[in-house]
Structure formats: structure tokens, C-alpha cells
């Protein structure tokens, strides 16, 4: 082990290129992972924030708020379901918001929600004409106490505070009372106007598996999900996640092959040295452990550089352009996967290390 580390220290040059390649791969892994997290986060925040055990859409809405309609009668039916403690209406309208101080054509995309049960992080139902704003809107210049003008009708909404991680469809959200939402919706989207007491969905509080009892109780007029299920049912979330994970998987495989290739080459080069070490009483196990140590150290260095690079990238990329969400968790997962790939990659050289014959050290000139 110590020999392996000393070699790394005394001859860093020979590991440099491998470290560079691993760094590039690690950056790719972390960047792709961050992109996936960012995309998912920005499209699911508002649903994830819902404080309840179930989210209820109408029958044919395909888990889309915009196409779902819950009439008062249907709501009453849901409230009667066994295990339901409380149901709160939820609705959204996506509009362009005019932010004071911005150019007349420079609009911020917002999703204005009307809610009855405050989502996590939202303290209360704010007074008419006001809303809590998602923090991502700060990058559009939105500030506390500012009044935004929403949609072609220029509906005024005053910002009374900020909440975090509640984005919807990649847009920053505003959280307002049902009355505010209904008024703004009717004024700006005549085609999607909803009558008094009609909502798009219901957030249901109750026991843990209440979500599974609602649809049978309403004769299938509803389409209910747990909150987690509703997040996954958001169009595109599943396929995005699958596609990215496949790409990440192949990238890990590339890391594995690169490590395998590099250490296979290094092992060939060191056959003579390993023969001597074995003749001196070194075990294959000890020698292989040295190889793995080097792979792990190279990978850790690469991962450290990549981690910092990605954090810098995250800081440099202007908010609101690429939906990148770099978390320490994602970096940690990437490092663990790379380390696993490095160790498995070294495995390709195990046979060669085992095959080195100590007798080769004897009777051979330079």
C-alpha cells in the first residue's frame, strides 16, 4: 500500500492523464446528475411541497392540474371517504409577470397557485391580491413588497414573502388565496375560467393510505395519487429520470473501462517489478491492493477536482438559464459510483497480477 502511494507521489506524471480523463468523466457524471436533479426539482417542487397524504385530480386529467376539474359535488364525495380528515382545493394558472424595473417585453414566467391548505413552507393563506413567491423568482428581480402585474389583464399581485423549492413546470410559483387565483385566472384565461368553488385538484389530509381508497369511493370520477406518486406522474418526470439514469449508467461504464485499460497497461509495464516483489515474499493480494489503492486515490483526486469544478460551474451559470442543481448528495453519489467503477476496473488486472511468476525475477538481465 505504502509503495503504491509513494509511487503516486514520486511519479505523479504517469497518473496525470488518467486523472484528467477521470476528472472529465466525473464532471460529466456530476453535471448530468445535477441537470437531472435540477430539471426534476424545477418541475416537481410545487407538488412535493403539498402538505397532505393524497392529491386528487379528476378522472381524465392525466395528472395535469390544468386539465383537472373538481366540482363541489365531487369534492363532497371525496370528503366523505373513510380516512379523509380534510380536503383543500388547489388550482394554478401560468402567466407572464411584469416585474417593476424590467423592460416592457421582459416578462417573468410565473405559476400562480390558489390553495386552501398551505403547502410546506407557506405560513398561511395570504390576503386577497397578495402572494408568497418562490425564491427562484428573485433571479427575475422579484423583491419583497413588490407588485407584479400578471398576464394580459395586468392583474396586480403584491409579494408578501418568499418560499423555497416550489417551482412548477420550470417556472417560479406564487402562492395566493383561492379567490385571488380564481380572479386572476378568469381575467387572463377566459377559456380556462372556473366557477366559484370549482378547483383543479384537492390536497387531502388523512391516514397514510387514504389515496388508495378515494378512487373506488368516487366510482372512478377521481384520479388520486400519494404526493410521491403525483410527483412521478407529472408528465415527463419518469422518462426524464430513466433517460438520464441510462446515460449516467453508460458514463459509469466508460469510467470503468478507462480505469481497467489504464491499470491493465500499467500492470503490463510493471510485470518485472511485480516478479521481484513476489520473489521477495510479496503476496499477490498485497500487490493488487496497491493497484486498487492507486485507482482509488486517482479517482478521489479526480472527483475532488470535478466536484469543485461543478460547484464553480453552478455558481457561474446564471440563475434561470440551465436548470442545474448541484447538491453534495449528488456529488457523493457520483464519487461512490466512480469508486466502485475504479475498483471493478482494477479487477481486470487481477488475473495478470496473479499470473506474475516470482521465478521471472531470477536469471534475467536488464
Amino acid at each position, binding site marked *: 500500500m505504502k509503495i503504491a502511494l509513494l509511487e503516486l507521489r514520486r511519479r505523479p506524471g504517469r497518473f496525470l492523464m488518467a486523472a484528467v480523463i477521470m476528472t472529465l468523466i466525473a464532471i460529466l457524471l456530476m453535471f448530468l446528475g445535477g441537470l437531472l436533479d435540477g430539471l426534476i426539482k424545477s418541475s416537481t417542487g410545487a407538488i412535493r411541497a403539498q402538505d397532505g397524504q393524497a392529491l386528487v385530480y379528476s378522472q381524465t386529467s392525466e395528472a395535469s392540474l390544468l386539465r383537472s376539474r373538481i366540482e363541489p359535488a365531487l369534492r363532497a364525495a371525496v370528503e366523505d371517504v373513510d380516512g379523509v380528515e380534510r380536503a383543500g382545493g388547489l388550482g394554478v394558472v401560468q402567466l407572464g409577470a411584469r416585474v417593476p424595473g424590467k423592460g416592457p417585453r421582459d416578462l417573468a414566467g410565473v405559476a400562480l397557485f390558489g390553495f386552501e391548505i398551505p403547502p410546506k413552507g407557506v405560513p398561511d393563506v395570504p390576503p386577497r391580491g397578495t402572494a408568497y413567491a418562490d425564491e427562484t423568482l428573485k433571479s427575475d428581480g422579484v423583491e419583497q413588497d413588490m407588485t407584479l402585474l400578471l398576464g394580459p389583464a395586468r392583474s396586480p399581485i403584491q409579494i408578501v414573502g418568499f418560499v423555497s423549492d416550489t417551482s412548477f413546470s420550470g417556472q417560479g410559483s406564487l402562492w395566493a388565496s383561492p379567490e385571488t387565483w380564481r380572479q386572476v385566472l378568469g381575467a387572463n384565461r377566459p*377559456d380556462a375560467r372556473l366557477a366559484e368553488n370549482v378547483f383543479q385538484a384537492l390536497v387531502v389530509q388523512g391516514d397514510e393510505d387514504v389515496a388508495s381508497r378515494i378512487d373506488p369511493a368516487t366510482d372512478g370520477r377521481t384520479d388520486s395519487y400519494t404526493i410521491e406518486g403525483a410527483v412521478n406522474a407529472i408528465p415527463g418526470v419518469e*422518462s426524464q429520470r430513466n433517460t438520464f439514469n441510462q446515460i449516467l449508467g453508460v458514463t459509469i461504464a466508460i469510467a470503468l473501462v478507462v480505469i481497467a485499460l489504464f491499470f491493465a497497461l500499467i500492470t503490463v509495464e510493471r510485470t518485472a517489478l511485480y516478479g521481484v516483489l513476489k520473489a521477495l515474499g510479496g503476496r499477490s493480494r498485497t500487490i493488487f491492493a496497491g493497484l486498487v489503492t492507486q485507482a482509488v486515490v486517482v479517482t478521489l483526486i479526480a472527483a475532488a477536482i470535478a466536484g469543485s469544478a461543478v460547484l464553480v460551474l453552478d455558481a457561474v451559470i446564471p440563475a434561470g438559464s440551465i436548470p442545474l442543481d448541484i447538491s453534495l448528495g449528488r456529488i457523493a453519489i457520483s464519487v461512490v459510483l466512480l469508486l466502485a467503477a475504479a475498483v471493478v476496473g482494477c479487477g481486470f488486472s487481477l488475473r495478470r497480477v496473479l499470473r506474475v511468476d516470482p521465478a521471472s525475477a531470477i536469471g534475467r538481465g536488464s
Partner: protein
Amino acid sequence: MFLALREIGRAKARFGLLVSAIALLVFLILFQQSLQNGLLTSFTGAVKNQSAPVLVYSVDGQRVLQASVITPDLEQRVRSTEGVGEVGAIRQGTFTGAPLTESENFDTSVIGYDAGADGEGLGAPASLSEGRLPTRAFEGVASAADARNGYGVGDVVRIVPGDAEISIVGIAQEAQLNVGPTIFVSNETYLELVAAVNPDAGVPPPNVLGVAPAVGVTDAQVVEAINGQSLELDALTRSDAAAKTPGVAQVQQSFAIIFLLYALVVPCVTGLFFLIVTFQKAGALTLLRAIGASARSLVWSLLLQAVIILGAGLALGILLYLPVSQTRLGGLELQFEEGAVIGWSIALLALGLVSSLFAARRVLKIDPMEATTGRGVGQ
């Protein structure tokens, strides 16, 4: 030639690993190229491949069809703008579509346009690959990518709730919107659908206006003239409208970073490999030089190996990509991108060769005299 091939034959495992590393990288690059193109096409194809050369959004719509609303006042301003020829109303909404032949429901974008008696009109699909344009109520042209899912010519798609039914009479290539099935219908049909789905809704105004410039006026001139009319209007040429749809730039930027990184890894891996291999066989190369092999022939042999390995990696990568490029990812139809295959093959081959020149430089430095002292380039 002989030397180069012999060596590859002798060290199959090593060269095999290199080929597989390159193949996986090529596969990923091409796959993501398909993914990017597929995403952009199925995201904005309906905008790009419709017949109106200029689209006019409301500024509030932020270049999203569904979010834009053209009030009668704005419509009047557009119609009276100098240089404007023909104007047509375009409406778009997302509905739940239930093809009668399928058990599954799909998020379906429906685009309504002012269809004439022959089905033509601004906002109609620019070209059809099959069938005809809608000429009667409740007829529609569907995006080709979804023909297999019950959106083919002769299929009927029920829009729920409301149970209005649309008969598919034509197919248009690359005409998806928002990565899902898309149907082009007349505005009359569109309004019927809206009323069926949501009886509370009034008559929705157009979402955007399709504009054809008057004779002798360019698209750009019309765009400028319309934008000069009002700060509420956002006119764009067809291709700009597609390129400036929210999200498109992000997708392109993200993929640009990804491609750059993958493209860097290929020459690094190839360069490193040949450098190490050259070090390892320094002794043998010195010997070959001593017995009369010219430095040039050794370098050629090395470059030949690089070409063979890169070629094999590219071929294998493309082979892996071939079946994947024919599949669907969710609502996304991938395509075999010949242009990307050719472009990346040339780029990666060139980059790989350049990187192996580092090893070639080593070979050139070999002094045949050293064969007698037992020292090669590696020592």
C-alpha cells in the same frame, strides 16, 4: 501494416478495452445527439413545420402558443400593419386524447387554424406525408411520430371529457408540440372541443396569429413592422419562434456542455493509450530502428493502429446506436442522425489522431544507437 495488425492481434485484451471505451463514448455522444434533436423537434416541430411564415404572439405569452392570447384589439393592429398580407387565427390547447384503438390516454396538443374549403390555411401543417388536410368538422392531421399509437390515418381519437371525436385524415412529419401527440384541426372544430371539455369557458380568443407578408415584403420586414405597432405584440419568423421557445436554449446549452466533455474524453483516452503503449514497447521499437526500420514507417504503423482502433470504436459505437436510435423514449421519437454520425466520426477520428501524435513524437525521438546500450525511450 503488418506490424500494426500483428501487435493488435497479440494484445487483444488491451486493444479490446480501448475499442470498447471509444465505442461507449461514441454511442453516448450519438445517442444524446438524437435525444437533443428529438427533444427539440418534438418540442417545437409543430411551430417549425406549419405554414405561416410569421407568428405573432402576445408579449404575455412568452413565446408559448398556449400562454399567448391575442385580444381583438391586438388582432386589429396586426391586420392593419403595413406589409401584412394574409392573417389567420391559430389556437392551441392541451387535451386528454383517447385513441379508440388504444386503452391508454395521451396528453394531446390540438392546434386550430383558419382552414379553407381545401383545408389549407395559415398554421396548417406545411407538408403531409400521408392523407389530406381536414376539410370537414372533427377531422384532423396528426403528428407522424404518434401514428402507431392510434393517431394514424383512419383512426379516431376521442377527446375527454366531453367525448368529442376527431377522425385522423392526414399525417405530418416532425409536427409534434411539447413532446406528445399533436393534431391540427380547423378553428371551428377546436372551439367545439373547448366547449365540450369545459362548458364554463367562453369563446377563447386566438392564441397567436399566423401572418403571411404581402407581395414584395420579406418576413423580417413584417416582423419589424408588427413589433413596432405595440409593446404587447411579439412577432417572430417561423424558425425564430421555434428556436426561442422557452427551454430550447437551455436544452442546447446543456447538451453543448455535455458534448464538449464527452468529445474531450475520446482523444484523451486514445492519446494516453498510445503514449503508454509506445513507452512499453520502446525496447522493441529501438531494436526495429537498429535493424533498419525508418522512423517514418514506425510512425505510420502507430497512426495506422490509431485509425484502426478509432475506426473499430466508431463502427461498434454506431452499431450500438443503430437499434437505440429507432426507439421511443416516452413520447419522444428518436431518429438515426446521419449528419451527426458523419460529423462526429470525422471529428473524433481527427481528435484521436491528433492525440496519438504525442506518441508519434516519442517514436521519432528513438535513437537506434540505444539498442546497443539497452536503453529505449522509456528509460
